[in-house]
Protein backbone atom coordinates (compact mmCIF):
# COMPACT_ATOMS: atom_id res chain seq x y z
CA UNK A 1 0.00 0.00 0.00
CA UNK A 2 1.33 3.41 -0.98
CA UNK A 3 0.55 5.08 2.36
CA UNK A 4 2.55 2.43 4.24
CA UNK A 5 5.53 2.95 1.96
CA UNK A 6 5.32 6.70 2.47
CA UNK A 7 5.10 6.24 6.25
CA UNK A 8 8.34 4.25 6.14
CA UNK A 9 10.04 6.96 4.08
CA UNK A 10 8.76 10.04 5.88
CA UNK A 11 8.01 9.11 9.49
CA UNK A 12 9.59 10.11 11.80
CA UNK A 13 9.87 13.53 10.21
CA UNK A 14 12.59 16.03 10.86
CA UNK A 15 11.45 19.19 12.60
CA UNK A 16 12.09 21.12 9.39
CA UNK A 17 9.94 18.83 7.28
CA UNK A 18 7.15 18.76 9.87
CA UNK A 19 6.92 22.54 10.07
CA UNK A 20 7.04 22.95 6.28
CA UNK A 21 4.25 20.39 5.85
CA UNK A 22 2.24 22.08 8.59
CA UNK A 23 2.67 25.49 6.96
CA UNK A 24 1.23 24.12 3.71
CA UNK A 25 -2.19 23.40 5.14
CA UNK A 26 -2.65 26.82 3.55
CA UNK A 27 -1.31 27.60 0.06
CA UNK A 28 2.08 29.30 0.38
CA UNK A 29 5.29 29.94 -1.54
CA UNK A 30 8.85 29.38 -0.34
CA UNK A 31 9.55 32.68 1.37
CA UNK A 32 6.05 32.71 2.88
CA UNK A 33 6.74 29.29 4.40
CA UNK A 34 9.94 30.63 6.01
CA UNK A 35 8.11 33.63 7.49
CA UNK A 36 5.30 31.45 8.86
CA UNK A 37 7.63 28.92 10.47
CA UNK A 38 9.73 31.72 11.98
CA UNK A 39 6.60 33.27 13.49
CA UNK A 40 5.10 30.13 15.01
CA UNK A 41 8.46 29.11 16.53
CA UNK A 42 9.06 32.62 17.91
CA UNK A 43 12.16 33.02 15.77
CA UNK A 44 13.76 29.74 16.90
CA UNK A 45 13.53 28.04 13.53
CA UNK A 46 14.59 30.15 10.57
CA UNK A 47 14.67 28.02 7.44
CA UNK A 48 17.47 28.56 4.94
CA UNK A 49 16.94 28.73 1.17
CA UNK A 50 18.80 25.50 0.43
CA UNK A 51 17.02 23.59 3.20
CA UNK A 52 13.62 24.84 2.07
CA UNK A 53 14.21 24.08 -1.62
CA UNK A 54 15.48 20.56 -0.92
CA UNK A 55 12.70 19.71 1.52
CA UNK A 56 9.97 21.02 -0.78
CA UNK A 57 11.48 18.87 -3.55
CA UNK A 58 11.31 15.74 -1.37
CA UNK A 59 7.75 16.45 -0.25
CA UNK A 60 6.59 17.09 -3.81
CA UNK A 61 8.34 13.99 -5.13
CA UNK A 62 6.71 11.90 -2.39
CA UNK A 63 3.27 13.34 -3.23
CA UNK A 64 2.81 14.95 0.19
CA UNK A 65 2.45 18.40 -1.37
CA UNK A 66 1.52 19.63 -4.80
CA UNK A 67 2.14 22.78 -6.74
CA UNK A 68 -0.93 24.95 -7.17
CA UNK A 69 -0.01 28.02 -9.17
CA UNK A 70 3.07 29.82 -10.40
CA UNK A 71 2.68 33.53 -9.85
CA UNK A 72 5.37 36.08 -10.73
CA UNK A 73 7.86 33.16 -11.06
CA UNK A 74 6.99 32.07 -7.50
CA UNK A 75 5.74 28.53 -7.07
CA UNK A 76 2.90 28.03 -4.61
CA UNK A 77 2.36 24.74 -2.83
CA UNK A 78 -0.35 23.11 -0.75
CA UNK A 79 -0.54 19.88 1.21
CA UNK A 80 -2.13 16.90 -0.55
CA UNK A 81 -4.61 14.42 0.96
CA UNK A 82 -1.80 11.92 1.49
CA UNK A 83 0.28 14.67 3.07
CA UNK A 84 -2.60 15.42 5.49
CA UNK A 85 -2.78 11.74 6.46
CA UNK A 86 0.94 11.60 7.19
CA UNK A 87 0.83 14.89 9.09
CA UNK A 88 -1.93 13.48 11.33
CA UNK A 89 0.08 10.28 11.85
CA UNK A 90 3.14 12.29 12.84
CA UNK A 91 1.08 14.55 15.13
CA UNK A 92 -0.30 11.46 16.92
CA UNK A 93 3.20 10.03 17.30
CA UNK A 94 4.57 13.28 18.76
CA UNK A 95 1.55 13.65 21.09
CA UNK A 96 2.20 10.14 22.44
CA UNK A 97 5.86 11.04 23.09
CA UNK A 98 4.75 14.28 24.77
CA UNK A 99 2.31 12.42 27.07
CA UNK A 100 4.97 9.90 28.05
CA UNK A 101 7.54 12.60 28.70
CA UNK A 102 5.21 14.48 31.05
CA UNK A 103 6.02 11.86 33.70
CA UNK A 104 9.66 13.00 33.65
CA UNK A 105 8.71 16.67 33.91
Amino acid at each position, binding site marked *: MQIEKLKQSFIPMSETMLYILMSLTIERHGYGIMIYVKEITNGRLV*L*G*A*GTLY*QTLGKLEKGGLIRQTI*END*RKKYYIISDIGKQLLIEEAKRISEINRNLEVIL
Partner: protein
Amino acid sequence: MIKFLSSFFHPIPSDYEEWLENLALKGWHPKEINKWNSLVMGFEKKGPKKYRYVLDLQTSYNSDYIKVYEEFGWELCGRITNAFLWRMEYDEKRPESFTDVQTLRERNSRFFKAFSFSFLFQIIIEILITLFFIVNINTFDMSVLVEYLVVLILSYIYTIYLVAIMFKIRRKDW
Protein backbone atom coordinates in the same frame (compact mmCIF):
# COMPACT_ATOMS: atom_id res chain seq x y z
CA MET B 1 45.23 38.63 -8.17
CA ILE B 2 44.98 35.18 -9.71
CA LYS B 3 44.58 31.94 -7.79
CA PHE B 4 45.32 28.62 -9.48
CA LEU B 5 43.76 25.22 -8.81
CA SER B 6 41.49 26.59 -6.07
CA SER B 7 39.18 23.54 -6.18
CA PHE B 8 42.17 21.24 -5.71
CA PHE B 9 43.52 23.16 -2.70
CA HIS B 10 40.07 23.62 -1.13
CA PRO B 11 38.00 20.65 -2.35
CA ILE B 12 35.73 20.41 0.71
CA PRO B 13 32.66 22.67 0.22
CA SER B 14 32.85 24.31 3.65
CA ASP B 15 36.62 24.90 3.25
CA TYR B 16 36.07 26.50 -0.15
CA GLU B 17 33.38 28.79 1.29
CA GLU B 18 35.62 29.82 4.21
CA TRP B 19 38.53 30.49 1.85
CA LEU B 20 36.40 32.89 -0.22
CA GLU B 21 35.05 34.55 2.93
CA ASN B 22 38.55 35.11 4.33
CA LEU B 23 39.63 36.67 1.02
CA ALA B 24 36.53 38.91 1.08
CA LEU B 25 37.47 40.14 4.57
CA LYS B 26 40.81 41.23 3.10
CA GLY B 27 39.03 42.99 0.22
CA TRP B 28 39.50 40.37 -2.52
CA HIS B 29 36.40 39.44 -4.50
CA PRO B 30 35.99 37.05 -7.47
CA LYS B 31 35.94 38.85 -10.81
CA GLU B 32 33.91 36.28 -12.69
CA ILE B 33 32.54 32.85 -11.81
CA ASN B 34 32.66 30.28 -14.60
CA LYS B 35 33.55 26.65 -15.34
CA TRP B 36 37.29 27.43 -15.45
CA ASN B 37 37.45 28.66 -11.85
CA SER B 38 38.55 25.23 -10.65
CA LEU B 39 41.79 25.90 -12.53
CA VAL B 40 42.09 29.69 -12.64
CA MET B 41 40.21 32.29 -10.61
CA GLY B 42 40.72 36.06 -10.89
CA PHE B 43 40.13 38.37 -7.94
CA GLU B 44 39.81 42.15 -7.83
CA LYS B 45 40.60 44.39 -4.89
CA LYS B 46 37.65 46.29 -3.47
CA GLY B 47 36.62 47.13 0.10
CA PRO B 48 36.66 44.38 2.75
CA LYS B 49 33.25 42.80 3.17
CA LYS B 50 31.68 40.26 5.44
CA TYR B 51 30.26 37.77 2.97
CA ARG B 52 28.78 34.35 3.56
CA TYR B 53 29.51 32.16 0.56
CA VAL B 54 27.55 28.99 -0.17
CA LEU B 55 28.48 26.34 -2.72
CA ASP B 56 25.56 24.21 -3.85
CA LEU B 57 25.94 21.39 -6.38
CA GLN B 58 22.79 20.92 -8.44
CA THR B 59 22.91 18.63 -11.48
CA SER B 60 19.15 19.03 -11.98
CA TYR B 61 17.03 21.80 -10.59
CA ASN B 62 13.65 23.34 -11.28
CA SER B 63 12.65 26.90 -12.11
CA ASP B 64 12.06 27.62 -8.41
CA TYR B 65 15.67 27.08 -7.38
CA ILE B 66 17.18 30.45 -8.26
CA LYS B 67 14.01 32.32 -7.31
CA VAL B 68 13.96 30.80 -3.80
CA TYR B 69 17.58 31.73 -3.13
CA GLU B 70 17.11 35.28 -4.46
CA GLU B 71 13.95 35.76 -2.41
CA PHE B 72 15.97 34.87 0.68
CA GLY B 73 18.47 37.60 -0.17
CA TRP B 74 21.26 35.52 -1.74
CA GLU B 75 23.21 36.89 -4.69
CA LEU B 76 24.15 34.44 -7.44
CA CYS B 77 27.87 34.91 -8.19
CA GLY B 78 27.85 32.32 -10.96
CA ARG B 79 28.25 28.64 -11.72
CA ILE B 80 31.39 26.52 -11.59
CA THR B 81 30.10 23.77 -13.90
CA ASN B 82 27.17 22.33 -11.86
CA ALA B 83 28.02 24.12 -8.61
CA PHE B 84 26.14 27.33 -7.88
CA LEU B 85 28.09 29.90 -5.89
CA TRP B 86 25.88 32.14 -3.76
CA ARG B 87 26.79 34.93 -1.38
CA MET B 88 25.11 37.22 1.12
CA GLU B 89 26.57 40.20 2.89
CA TYR B 90 25.92 40.29 6.63
CA ASP B 91 26.69 42.30 9.77
CA GLU B 92 26.24 40.11 12.82
CA LYS B 93 25.15 36.49 12.53
CA ARG B 94 26.66 34.47 9.67
CA PRO B 95 23.67 33.40 7.51
CA GLU B 96 23.10 29.79 6.54
CA SER B 97 21.44 28.26 3.52
CA PHE B 98 21.34 24.73 4.95
CA THR B 99 19.78 25.16 8.38
CA ASP B 100 19.29 21.55 9.31
CA VAL B 101 21.72 18.65 9.53
CA GLN B 102 19.86 16.45 7.03
CA THR B 103 19.85 18.94 4.14
CA LEU B 104 23.47 19.92 4.86
CA ARG B 105 24.46 16.25 4.67
CA GLU B 106 22.54 15.93 1.41
CA ARG B 107 24.43 18.93 -0.03
CA ASN B 108 27.75 17.34 0.99
CA SER B 109 26.59 13.98 -0.34
CA ARG B 110 26.15 15.50 -3.80
CA PHE B 111 29.82 16.58 -3.74
CA PHE B 112 30.83 13.17 -2.41
CA LYS B 113 29.03 11.48 -5.32
CA ALA B 114 30.72 13.78 -7.83
CA PHE B 115 34.16 12.87 -6.40
CA SER B 116 33.17 9.18 -6.31
CA PHE B 117 32.32 9.30 -10.00
CA SER B 118 35.71 10.88 -10.79
CA PHE B 119 37.42 8.28 -8.64
CA LEU B 120 35.67 5.36 -10.37
CA PHE B 121 36.44 6.73 -13.82
CA GLN B 122 40.05 7.34 -12.81
CA ILE B 123 40.57 3.87 -11.31
CA ILE B 124 39.10 2.10 -14.34
CA ILE B 125 41.42 3.99 -16.71
CA GLU B 126 44.40 3.31 -14.43
CA ILE B 127 43.69 -0.41 -14.25
CA LEU B 128 43.46 -0.60 -18.04
CA ILE B 129 46.70 1.36 -18.52
CA THR B 130 48.47 -0.73 -15.86
CA LEU B 131 47.37 -3.97 -17.53
CA PHE B 132 48.50 -2.69 -20.91
CA PHE B 133 51.83 -1.71 -19.34
CA ILE B 134 52.33 -5.13 -17.75
CA VAL B 135 51.38 -7.03 -20.90
CA ASN B 136 53.69 -4.97 -23.13
CA ILE B 137 56.56 -4.32 -20.70
CA ASN B 138 59.05 -6.34 -22.70
CA THR B 139 58.37 -4.39 -25.87
CA PHE B 140 59.28 -1.00 -24.39
CA ASP B 141 62.71 0.51 -24.38
CA MET B 142 64.01 2.15 -21.20
CA SER B 143 63.00 5.76 -21.95
CA VAL B 144 59.39 4.79 -22.82
CA LEU B 145 59.26 2.57 -19.71
CA VAL B 146 60.31 5.46 -17.50
CA GLU B 147 57.73 7.79 -19.10
CA TYR B 148 54.95 5.26 -18.58
CA LEU B 149 55.99 4.70 -14.97
CA VAL B 150 56.07 8.44 -14.22
CA VAL B 151 52.58 8.93 -15.73
CA LEU B 152 51.23 5.92 -13.83
CA ILE B 153 52.70 7.06 -10.52
CA LEU B 154 51.29 10.59 -10.95
CA SER B 155 47.94 9.12 -11.86
CA TYR B 156 47.86 6.91 -8.74
CA ILE B 157 48.87 9.89 -6.59
CA TYR B 158 45.85 11.78 -7.98
CA THR B 159 43.61 8.78 -7.18
CA ILE B 160 44.89 8.73 -3.59
CA TYR B 161 44.16 12.48 -3.43
CA LEU B 162 40.54 11.83 -4.56
CA VAL B 163 40.13 9.13 -1.91
CA ALA B 164 41.53 11.48 0.76
CA ILE B 165 38.99 14.15 -0.23
CA MET B 166 36.11 11.66 -0.06
CA PHE B 167 37.20 10.56 3.43
CA LYS B 168 37.55 14.16 4.55
CA ILE B 169 34.04 15.06 3.33
CA ARG B 170 32.59 12.07 5.20
CA ARG B 171 34.51 12.82 8.37
CA LYS B 172 34.19 16.59 8.51
CA ASP B 173 30.98 17.57 6.78
CA TRP B 174 28.79 14.49 7.04
